[in-house]
């Protein structure tokens, strides 16, 4: 127990001498928790200013997390859309419309090419679709803007749609341009309620068709609501639902042929075969064939490349805002060092070394950026979540982006804190003490 009397008693000099070199032992560091406590005091002493200092870092970190979440969300949506089309697919489409659609000597992708693709070994299903939007009438119920999907009989297996009731249309229906339709579960319920729709007749646009099947519920995949669609033979779409002048133009051109490949087959070989057979049927060489054939991974990659450019731009924006945040910290720390010159002098007069002072201000800068980083992470995660919930854009929070943002914030603190901390450490005790 130290008492007031002990304090007022000067040490006997021999005792001080016995301490010998220990008196000069200034190389030891004061404990880290001491430095932390001193720096923390500096941070909380002026809360508003600290908050303003951190603002740049907060915005930078939040921006990094939100932007990465947006681009990750976009990529996830793309992947889901492509994968939602079915498994093991290749996409065959016109590279470009040579000589305009339906142009005389052009080589176009047409519905009949489906048969060529289907004849390739390893192709287990082919699918073509042509979607149009029309009103639908059943008895007294009318639904407007219903997606009418003209497609081919392999649709249920390729798109993984189950038929709950009745049947899907077959090759014969297709060949005969049969006026038949299969309803998505939601449309069926909307039109018929609990009644059985099979063999009922509905009006699609002005064409009367007979319902032959109802699909099981599938929900939305990749932004497409399967339950809200009506499926009809694609020949029926060409024949009835595409406006006549437009139909003449388009002919039986198709946008894309989907081919489902046997799981065990080699993708590249099958693709080469498809190219070869298509070229042969068109009377051109494989090199001249104006079609691109891509796997799902190819498509995801191609579309991803577009978002990658976007992502790089965002990374730059975020990086610049972190940099600005760092400069903000440096500015405020420089002002703070000047303002607290006397404090520095007082600390030096009672035994703080320049290392102590440097560490104090460096720690303060790092603390500011870490606390700023933490607030930024919370704001970023919250912001990404709210953004995803309230807008059309999807956001996926990437855990590594949190580490990245937080790590950069810390690095910014060390980097931009160094100069002010050094300035503080180099102050002369006398001049610092005299500073008002």
């Amino acid at each position: 127990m130290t008492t007031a009397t002990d304090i007022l008693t000067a040490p006997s000099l021999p005792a001080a001498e016995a301490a010998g070199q220990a008196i000069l032992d200034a190389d030891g560091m004061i404990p880290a928790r001491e430095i932390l406590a001193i720096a923390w005091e500096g941070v909380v002493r002026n809360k508003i200013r600290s908050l303003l200092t951190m603002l740049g870092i907060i915005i930078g970190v939040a921006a990094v997390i939100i932007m990465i979440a947006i681009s990750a969300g976009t990529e996830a949506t793309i992947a889901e859309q492509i994968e939602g089309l079915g498994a093991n697919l290749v996409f065959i489409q016109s590279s470009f419309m040579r000589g305009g659609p339906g142009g005389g000597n052009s080589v176009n992708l047409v519905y009949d090419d489906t048969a060529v693709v289907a004849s390739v070994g390893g192709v287990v299903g082919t699918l073509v679709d042509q979607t149009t939007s029309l009103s639908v009438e059943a008895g007294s119920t009318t639904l407007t803007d219903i997606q009418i999907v003209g497609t081919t009989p392999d649709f249920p297996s390729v798109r993984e749609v189950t038929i709950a009731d009745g049947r899907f249309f077959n090759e014969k229906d297709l060949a005969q341009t049969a006026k038949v339709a299969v309803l998505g579960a939601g449309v069926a319920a909307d039109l018929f309620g609990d009644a059985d729709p099979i063999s009922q007749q509905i009006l699609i646009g002005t064409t009367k068709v007979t319902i032959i099947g109802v699909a099981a519920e599938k929900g939305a995949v990749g932004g497409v609501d399967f339950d809200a669609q009506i499926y009809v033979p694609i020949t029926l779409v060409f024949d009835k639902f595409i406006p006549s002048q437009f139909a003449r133009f388009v002919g039986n051109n198709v946008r894309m042929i989907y081919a489902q490949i046997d799981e065990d087959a080699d993708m590249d070989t099958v693709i080469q075969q498809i190219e070869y057979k298509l070229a042969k049927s068109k009377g051109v060489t494989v090199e001249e064939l104006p079609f691109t054939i891509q796997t799902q991974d190819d498509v995801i990659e191609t579309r991803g490349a577009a978002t990658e450019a976007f992502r790089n731009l965002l990374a730059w924006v975020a990086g610049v805002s972190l940099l600005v945040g760092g400069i903000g910290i440096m500015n405020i720390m420089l002002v703070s060092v000047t303002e607290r010159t006397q404090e520095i002098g007082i600390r030096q007069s009672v035994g703080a070394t320049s290392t102590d002072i440097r560490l104090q201000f460096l720690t303060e800068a790092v603390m500011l950026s870490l606390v700023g980083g933490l607030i930024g992470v919370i704001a970023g995660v919250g912001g990404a979540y709210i953004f995803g919930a309230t807008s059309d854009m999807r956001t996926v929070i990437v855990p590594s982006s949190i580490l990245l943002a937080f790590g950069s914030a810390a690095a910014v603190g060390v980097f931009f804190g160094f100069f002010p901390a050094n300035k503080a450490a180099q102050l002369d005790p006398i001049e610092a003490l005299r500073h008002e």
Partner: protein
Amino acid sequence: MANTTIIQTEGLTKVYGMGDILVKALDGVDIHIEQGEFVAVMGPSGSGKSTLMNILGCLDRPTEGRYLLAGQDVSGLSNKQLAAIRNRQIGFVFQSFNLLSRTSAVGNVMLPLVYKRGAGAPPPAERHERAMAALEAVGLADRANHMPNEMSGGQRQRVAIARALVNNPVLIMADEPTGNLDTHTGHEIMKLLHDLHSRGGTIVMVTHEPDIAAQTQRTITMVDGKLADDGHGRRQ
């Protein structure tokens, strides 16, 4: 108690360069101060009193000359070593108190203990205890958690004195400790210093007030950076 020399200087000189003009703030000062002495330093403004105090207190270095503090030559020590000497052997009391304005009284008093390192560095609990004991010694234990701006000048100076003695220094340096205080409060501070002196403390104090200087055993007079009177009746 055997007489031990605490301060011994030889030809202490401090030159400030201001452009082409050189100011000799100290000009060959030789001083001896023994342990247990209470010495007043007087002299006109600009005569070099503060400059001397800063060098004797290891806050500054002489341009020339030697300085032995408690037998140790401090002239050639590094900045770090000087910081350690200030921390362990010297307690400062300034005219303008020099307290951390946003830190409580006890926090200010603890400061030298925070920067004490190596052997004898007190753990936090002991630090607080010693700081409280120092505050009690200056009669301010009940104000431990007050901020400096909640205290009077005299109270602030007492906090500063508590801070100066918390590390049991061999030397207390006080540069016009009563300069910012009224006469009554000044006498209270002097009473504390006397108290410290009577228990064996060595104190060097700058003052402009003859009656304050008269309370000490010995008065050194500075004129133009030179020792005009070393207080032993011998003029240099």
